[in-house]
């Protein structure tokens, strides 16, 4: 025995170096794998912020606009709907650059300013008709191409034919800059406007409101139903094939592709129940079905974590089963249920595939004012803008994503805080 022991010790020692190398390689590959996810996250957020941060700023141009009555009301009557406010802007631009002549050159000049300038003037005159005939110095939003140039997203050094803004326009912008007639400010339009074909006018307010209405429907349906279902399954359901079936079914529903829920919504809510297309109501219904399994599973876990001794104590005092559940178990399980609901809501907020099915993907300019108005949702807005070819929309897409992720982060933090604050150790 002794001799063979010495022998085996030698064998073990001999193999050690090779085994240590393998161990190190295995460990390194584990570290690498962990790094992949973390690095992706870093690259992802860096790209996003780099692309999207500039969208929170918008370039404005200072113009001296003469609210000339001869342009606005050539026949002496001012009709706000038809008055040529754009003409005022054009005049102001011509005055700024008097040596620009020729139709096509002038048209190029007019393109420096967003069409929003006309609306801005109209609103000013509508609010204060006495402005008519006066000259006022105002800041109007620049067109998206000027905006992109200022933000450095268009390189003026590359060949003229390769960029959407020509040499003459670049020169005008530079002259505006020299005269302090150009500056970038916080982009309020991004948060106050609905969607638009013009990037400098497009905002996420419509999408935000659509998401908001949808989440209200979702939480109003999914939370009570989810909690009720969890209570029944945990506290009342007899252990039978039926409850097993429900159990399997809920777990499976949680893993059904979300687009299938969209098909359900299209077939049942829109075609069969004839609910309106593109409405937050339908979106909310679909999303509540989608989040229901998440809430049920989380609520059941919360109920399970309430120790049986509490139930027994209450039952022992003569409370009915229902009283035990609603007076003792529910309050104790509530933090877990709320956490699960918030997680479910954050999933609903980020969901877009099923919404495409029920028509929430339309181009909608108006901000929805109710549950049945046509609307879109924040993630769908991201999808829509991501499809647009303009460089300015790519920037806004990133900005919309930042806002979306901000909301998701807040919701998840709320969930964590609720869990930490109200968590009990048994």
């Amino acid at each position, binding site marked *: *025995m002794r001799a063979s*022991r010495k022998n*085996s010790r030698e064998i*073990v020692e001999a193999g*050690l170096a090779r085994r240590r190398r393998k161990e190190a390689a295995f460990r390194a590959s584990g570290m690498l794998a962990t790094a992949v996810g973390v690095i992706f996250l870093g690259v992802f957020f860096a790209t996003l912020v780099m692309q999207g941060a500039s969208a929170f700023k918008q370039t404005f141009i200072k113009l001296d606009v003469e609210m000339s009555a001869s342009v606005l009301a050539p026949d002496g009557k001012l009709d706000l709907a038809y008055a040529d406010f754009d003409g005022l802007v054009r005049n102001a631009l011509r005055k700024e650059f008097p040596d620009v002549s020729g139709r096509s050159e002038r048209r190029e000049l007019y393109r420096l300013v967003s069409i929003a300038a006309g609306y801005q003037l109209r609103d000013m005159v509508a609010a204060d008709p006495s402005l008519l005939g006066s000259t006022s110095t105002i800041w109007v939003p620049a067109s998206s191409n000027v905006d992109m140039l200022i933000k450095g997203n268009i390189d003026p050094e590359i060949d003229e034919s390769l960029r959407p803004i020509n040499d003459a326009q670049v020169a005008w912008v530079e002259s505006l800059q020299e005269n302090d007639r150009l500056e970038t400010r916080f982009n309020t339009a991004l948060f106050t406007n609905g969607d638009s074909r013009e990037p400098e006018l497009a905002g996420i307010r419509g999408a935000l409101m659509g998401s908001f209405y949808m989440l209200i429907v979702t939480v109003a349906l999914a939370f009570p139903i989810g909690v009720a279902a969890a209570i029944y399954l945990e506290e009342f359901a007899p252990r039978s094939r039926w409850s097993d079936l429900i159990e399997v079914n809920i777990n499976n529903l949680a893993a059904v592709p979300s687009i299938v829920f969209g098909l359900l919504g299209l077939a049942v809510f829109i075609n069969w129940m004839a609910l309106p297309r593109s409405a937050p109501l339908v979106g909310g219904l679909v999303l509540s079905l989608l989040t229901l399994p998440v809430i049920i599973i989380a609520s059941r876990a919360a109920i399970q974590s309430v120790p049986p001794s509490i139930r027994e104590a209450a039952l022992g005092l003569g409370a009915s089963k229902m009283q035990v559940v609603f007076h003792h178990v529910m309050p104790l399980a509530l933090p877990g249920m709320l956490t699960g609901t918030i997680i479910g809501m954050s999933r609903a907020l980020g969901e877009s595939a099923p919404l495409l099915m029920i028509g929430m993907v339309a181009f909608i300019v108006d901000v929805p004012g109710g549950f049945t108005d046509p609307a879109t949702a924040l993630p769908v807005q991201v999808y829509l803008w991501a499809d647009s070819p303009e460089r300015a929309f790519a920037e806004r897409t990133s900005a919309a994503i930042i806002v979306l992720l901000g909301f998701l982060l807040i919701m998840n933090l709320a969930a964590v805080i609720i869990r930490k604050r109200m968590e009990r150790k048994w």
Partner: protein
Amino acid sequence: MTETKITEEKAMPEAGPVEPAGEFAAQKPNGAAARKVVDRVTEFGEETVGEVRCENPFVISENVNVYYGDNHAIRDVTLEIGRSEVIALIGPSGCGKSTYLRCLNRMNDSIESARVTGTITLDGRDIYSSDLDPVALRARVGMVFQKPNPFPKSIYDNVAYGPRIHGLAADRAELDDIVHTSLDRAGLLKEVKDRMDEPGTGLSGGQQQRLCIARTIAVNPEVILMDEPCSALDPIATARIEDLIDELSEDYTIVIVTHSMQQAARVSRRVAYFHLGRLVEVDETDKIFTNPQHKLTEDYITGRIG
């Protein structure tokens, strides 16, 4: 397991002298002064009583301390374990005997917060020195656990696992040989030789534990650590394992942690009594059970401390 024990220890009141020192002094036999280390019982009872040294020492611990974070789990343990000796570690739960056992093959390494000070040498080499690979150490110091833990593999693969990872067998025939010999030594060969391909988890509890012993001796270790190897077994299976330990003691140094004083009395030559992380008393088995020197030891073996 270790971690639960730590919490138990935390929950216990801080260690303190149960009896005034005078009583210990009165009990102390005169011959004790001649002994090498322990000839004095302080007021706090911090010194080990009895004989920590032995002839032909193989595993030597000097002033071993183990910390789990801020928790001081093992305090100043000095102990020699002889070649081909069976030594039993006894003591109330949470006393640190398992923790000490796991120091001997560095199983505590995998616990992040664990820290070991002092020296432990195996055959003269410091097992905590940086140039010693715990892998090689564990090939020399095998371990049998409290609950039988065969791998979810066949009986054959369970026993062949160690020789395979260490490359001990040159070919299949040699591997077969190692597996058969090991199973034979563990007294399991007759029962399983027709079903070597069946899963090891299908055996009875006692058989599983013998399989784990076979698995351990297949690596050809010099020391076998046993952490309450019979606590999950019925009396008949326990008796078989005890017989097995007896047989194995010819070739192996065996350190066994046990809850059962009868078991310690049956299988071991020496007994070490641990209490709240301290090694209270070590001596020949007979001496410990018939004439314990320390009040705590006496309390434990007479059943006053459980």
